[in-house]
């Protein structure tokens, strides 16, 4: 059971991200966009530009093959 919490930030680890863009493509509300910031693997990092649209489905975290994504919530995490 989840308590009501609001996603305040979605962190992308620039050292771990390999730029596969599964997060960009699979987010149901298109929270991510490809930025012009280059990560450690020499790829343009995805950036969670529209966190306000996030419905906290967790898909980006689940699908990220490189455990680079962390959804940061306010009002306590999962109960």
């Amino acid at each position, binding site marked *: 059971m989840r308590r009501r919490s609001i996603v305040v930030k979605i962190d992308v*680890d620039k*050292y*771990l991200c*390999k*730029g*596969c*863009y*599964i997060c*960009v*493509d*699979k987010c149901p509300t298109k929270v991510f966009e490809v930025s012009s910031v280059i990560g450690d*693997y020499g*790829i343009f990092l995805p950036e969670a530009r529209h966190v306000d649209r996030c419905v906290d489905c967790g*898909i980006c*975290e*689940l*699908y*990220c*093959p*490189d*455990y*680079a*994504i*962390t959804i940061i919530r306010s009002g306590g995490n999962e109960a």
Partner: protein
Amino acid sequence: MNPLIQNYLRSEYAQGKRRTIFCPGCGNGIILGYFVRAIDELKREDGFDDSKLYIVTGIGCSGNIPVPLKYNIIRALHGRALSVATGVKLVRPDSEVVVFAGDGDLLSIGGNHLIHTIRRNVGIKVILVNNMLYGMTGGQVAPTTPMEAITHTTPYGNPEPPLDACKLAVSLGATYVARWVVPLAKQCIQSIKELLLHRGFGLLECLSQCPVYQGRYVIGIDRPSKIMDYYLKITVVSDKPSYGDKITIGKFVDYERPTYEEIMWSIVNKAREGGNYEA
């Protein structure tokens, strides 16, 4: 770094000094995440004791899935993971033995061991990562590659029909057999949990994307998310295994019969009743 996963990583991985070896968008990394989440949920729901885990891997990209984890890990030779795992399970029947192996590893070079491990019903839990070819060696045909597909060793098309690992396992008497596909996260995690709690031999085949070889050559799509979509298109849920133009996914069998380690230990105990060995 995702803190949930980080919790389960071996020190150099947790400290960020080492990263997985997989190509961008590879399904192997996703399966690693599913495995960790399955264990994490089991620990919280059932008090699953993960200190009893022994993980044995084959050789191939998929054999690298558990390497970053802080469990006891044995990297077996190519094709021999089930043999090593059987040795572990026999001498430590209370341990939880998990095998990660690729389709080439488990079904081609290790095929004989698969047959006999299932026949014996050794209580080993196998996660078969089927990317439809040999990833590690650079995209050659595997026993799971669809007929006519182009790979680096079938430049004019694959002349051989593929093998359905699940059908084989069911026919040999495997007591848990399921096939899922990487985009179905919930089902994959649920199935890993069932596998870990199962008594006896269990097989979870996970269809997984290899964007750089399978994506590019076998199916002609190289964007990882699009291969995931493609997988959803070619699979259909069923209670019977089938591996053709449509690949059936789902749980195919789930029952129990006496395990090899149980039978073996009852033999040992009976033999000892007849008088202990003396030099």
